[in-house]
């Protein structure tokens, strides 16, 4: 029943064209300067989905790869693009353990091998209040979990990012308690939306975006989508994720996109879509980032202001 497009990105938008998009936008913004724009307004969004893909226009490759939060390479948005080049992603292995039937250190080829690599145009909402639309390539995490065999006592999945201060300059400072840790409840991990991304725009995942393997959980704030994964554990206890550990009043375990539960320091009711230019109106933030049809059932009966 899953919809799968026959079209590849390279057929829809040639690489030169999407790289060029910003210059065109810039020119358009320049001519639009004189047009009167009402200052106070919020853009209503009307999202429809084609299979798993949002109908919205994806951000350009340049935007997606030059505006990143990857504190392992520095706290500035351009730091990851500047500093991630030195990261060694080959060889790469992932240690899979805990409550699984086949624990072990898996070579990246064995992690990716035998999976259906899908193309998914997902909405991406950062906890800071900006958003993008990103065409990922990857496989559903449930395929990897099936491969290693989840034991009945497992309730959560815990992920860990590479810790390598030699190549990750941000890790030389205690900005966060390295290595970066994230977690999902098992049903969240099994959800068909939950992707292990290996690429974007049909190309290998750029290092600043979490090469060679990262999680993508589109209905949660971006920091849940942990990058450059080296360790996956199935656990019975809820793992403590890094941002919750850093500040439990501000960041929870679930971190579902929710316009009605504000961050203690800023509102989450609206977001700035990257690429809209300086005069673009903010747009409304959607419950579960628009993915309610897939995920709302998992949280039925839960107080989402308490389990934020």
């Amino acid at each position, binding site marked *: 029943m899953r919809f799968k497009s026959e079209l590849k990105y390279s057929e829809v938008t040639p690489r030169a064209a999407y790289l060029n998009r*910003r*210059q065109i*936008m*810039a020119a358009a*913004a*320049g001519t639009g*300067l004189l047009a009167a724009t009402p*200052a*106070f*307004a*919020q853009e209503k969004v009307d999202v429809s989905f084609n299979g798993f893909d949002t109908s919205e226009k994806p951000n350009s490759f*340049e*935007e997606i790869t*030059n*505006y990143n939060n990857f*504190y392992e390479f520095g*706290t500035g*948005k*351009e730091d990851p693009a500047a500093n991630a080049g030195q990261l060694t992603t080959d060889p790469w292995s992932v240690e899979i353990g805990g409550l699984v039937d086949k624990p072990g250190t898996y070579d990246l080829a064995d992690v990716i091998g035998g999976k259906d690599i899908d193309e998914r145009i997902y909405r991406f909402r950062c906890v*800071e209040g*900006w958003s993008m639309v990103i065409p990922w390539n990857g496989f559903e995490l449930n395929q990897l979990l099936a491969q290693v065999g989840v034991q009945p006592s497992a309730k959560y999945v815990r992920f860990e990012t590479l810790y390598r201060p030699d190549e990750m300059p941000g890790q030389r*400072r*205690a*900005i*966060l308690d390295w290595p970066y840790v994230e977690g999902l409840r098992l049903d969240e991990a099994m959800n068909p939306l939950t992707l292990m991304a290996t690429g974007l725009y049909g190309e290998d995942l750029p290092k600043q975006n979490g090469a060679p393997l990262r999680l993508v959980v589109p209905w949660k704030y971006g920091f849940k989508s942990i990058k450059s994964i080296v360790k996956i554990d199935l656990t019975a206890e809820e793992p403590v994720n890094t941002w919750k550990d*850093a*500040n439990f009043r501000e960041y929870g375990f679930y971190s579902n996109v929710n316009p009605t539960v*504000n961050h203690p*320091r*800023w*509102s989450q*009711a*609206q977001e*700035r879509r*990257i*690429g809209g*230019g*300086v*005069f673009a*109106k*903010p747009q409304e933030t959607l419950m579960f980032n628009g993915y309610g049809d897939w995920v709302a059932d998992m949280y039925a009966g839960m107080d989402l202001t308490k389990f934020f």
Partner: protein
Amino acid sequence: MVRPFDVSLDLKAIAMTPNAPPREPVSRRINSALRKVPAWPLYILALIYPAWLFYQAVTGTLGIDPVKELEHTIGLRGLQVLIATLCVTPLRKYTGVNLIRYRRALGLIGFWFIFLHLNVWLFLDVRNVSLILADLVKRPYIIIGMVAFALLVPLALTSNTLSIRKLGRNWRRLHWLAYPATVLGALHFVILVKGWQVEPLVYFAIVLAVLATRISIKRLALRRSG
């Protein structure tokens, strides 16, 4: 061994030349050189710089997220200029370099940049009256930033010769508010970022250090007069 460009050698030779006039202190030479430099070009720079930033934001050369870049850059410049304004007095006390002629311009430019920062937030970033009002009462970093701005308003309005004359010694009392305003501005920066980032903490430490020099100077003055 004589290294190339070894200026210390030359200076020694000059100093030891018989009948050489006694050398003026560096600070006095800087002061007399500055006497020919007026303050008005600072105001022109303060108009050109934000216009240039805005031009870059509109044409798409100010990074991927031009609104945030504009908001953060002009806010940070405001904080930097305000800190520079507060450094004028300690600089004179400790080094003798006298920049007092530029202090009014610096203070007004700092206020101007913060005013622009506020406007970027209102009209380009949030753009939503109910959210702005909610932020103003609920969000500590917004409240702190707004209080800092509010403290700067009377200072900007009285940064003219007429006000100095009219207010007399109250002018100095009023303008002491520049210290709490800058401390709050730096605090606003520290608490708006995620986690404990280095840059805002460095600015906060600098502001506290400048404040400390003023407190110790005052104490010393009290002790001497008492």
